[in-house]
């Protein structure tokens, strides 16, 4: 049987159930706001956002693999491109670009200019040190872990802090080949 061609981010996004972005944007904003009230320490909020993202990422990967028909990527370079063009598009409705590859091909940057998480957001001065979009770093890390790639994800640029784009650095720490994250009995 001929393999099914992978679907583009646009095609998948057009086929999934979608909602008004502001519901998503405002819900996320209210979560961040509530976390700041309850946890008080900005570092703790960053950590919780990352954890929430991780929990989401390990589940979203299923939907991603099911809908995109992407074959298992063994290559980190290919994986990064797929996340940027298909992953971001099918969920957030926006594409990211991949740049700043290192010589070994184990570290790159995902660049986002349009980011529905931050619409209407203006950080107050009291939130120095807050990585408002930290849920994204957790999502990327979680999703990659489920396809056997252990990564370290950090923010290099943040538009809410005055930079001109969102830049997420993804560094591949360890790749376990041939290992299936899914058990047959599940």
């Amino acid at each position: 049987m001929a393999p099914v061609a992978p679907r583009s981010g646009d095609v998948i996004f057009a086929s999934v159930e979608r909602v008004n972005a502001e519901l998503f944007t405002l819900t996320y904003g209210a979560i961040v706001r509530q976390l700041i009230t309850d946890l008080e320490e900005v570092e703790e909020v960053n950590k919780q956002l990352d954890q929430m993202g991780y929990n989401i990422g390990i589940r979203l990967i299923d939907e991603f693999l099911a809908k995109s028909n992407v074959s298992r990527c063994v290559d980190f370079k290919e994986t990064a491109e797929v996340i940027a063009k298909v992953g971001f598009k099918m969920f957030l409705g926006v594409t990211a670009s991949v740049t700043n590859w290192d010589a070994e091909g184990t570290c790159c940057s995902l660049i986002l200019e349009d980011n529905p998480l931050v619409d209407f957001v203006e950080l107050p001065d009291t939130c120095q040190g807050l990585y408002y979009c930290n849920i994204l770093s957790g999502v990327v890390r979680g999703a990659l872990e489920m396809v056997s790639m252990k990564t370290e994800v950090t923010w290099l640029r943040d538009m809410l802090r005055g930079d001109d784009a969102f830049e997420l650095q993804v560094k591949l720490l360890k790749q376990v080949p041939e290992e299936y994250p899914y058990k047959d009995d599940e």
Partner: protein
Amino acid sequence: MGKEVSESCVESLLTEIVSSYGTRFYANKPDLAARRIEAIGYQVGHQLSERYTMERPRFSDHLEAIKFICKDFWSELFKKQIDNLKTNHRGTFVLQDNRFRWLSHMSIDPSPENSGSTQDPSAVAENKAAEAASMHLYFPCGIIRGALSNLGIPCAVSADISNLPACEFLSFSALN
């Protein structure tokens, strides 16, 4: 057509709100968790009501505002209207959604717990499932309360899921 995201983004956030507040931050204090989750919904409802009433004339009375919530507001959020609206004409409204989107799409796993009780296991499981489902409802209750509050109708909102997959949102208002 305004900006959109996939529905799974919103549902993922909802699941995480319930998981974080219900099982991590306030694991043994469901009331505190519920209040926080409801507060998150309240802010969202407050802000959405501001946005979704922007292009329209003011409501003449509370009933018009509630109808707006049932029709336009609900449609913006869930792509359908409230199926049935009841009132006792003394400040209480019941908004019935026969197939509430956020309940029907979620797989609500009751959190694993050693019950150690002598209760019938299926009843225990049913209780746990109901508990988990109700945690998911504080957020939409908060949205409704935030929206109504911003439209001049301070109220308390609760949900009734004794007739799944239908969900009834009850709004109690001291004012009429």
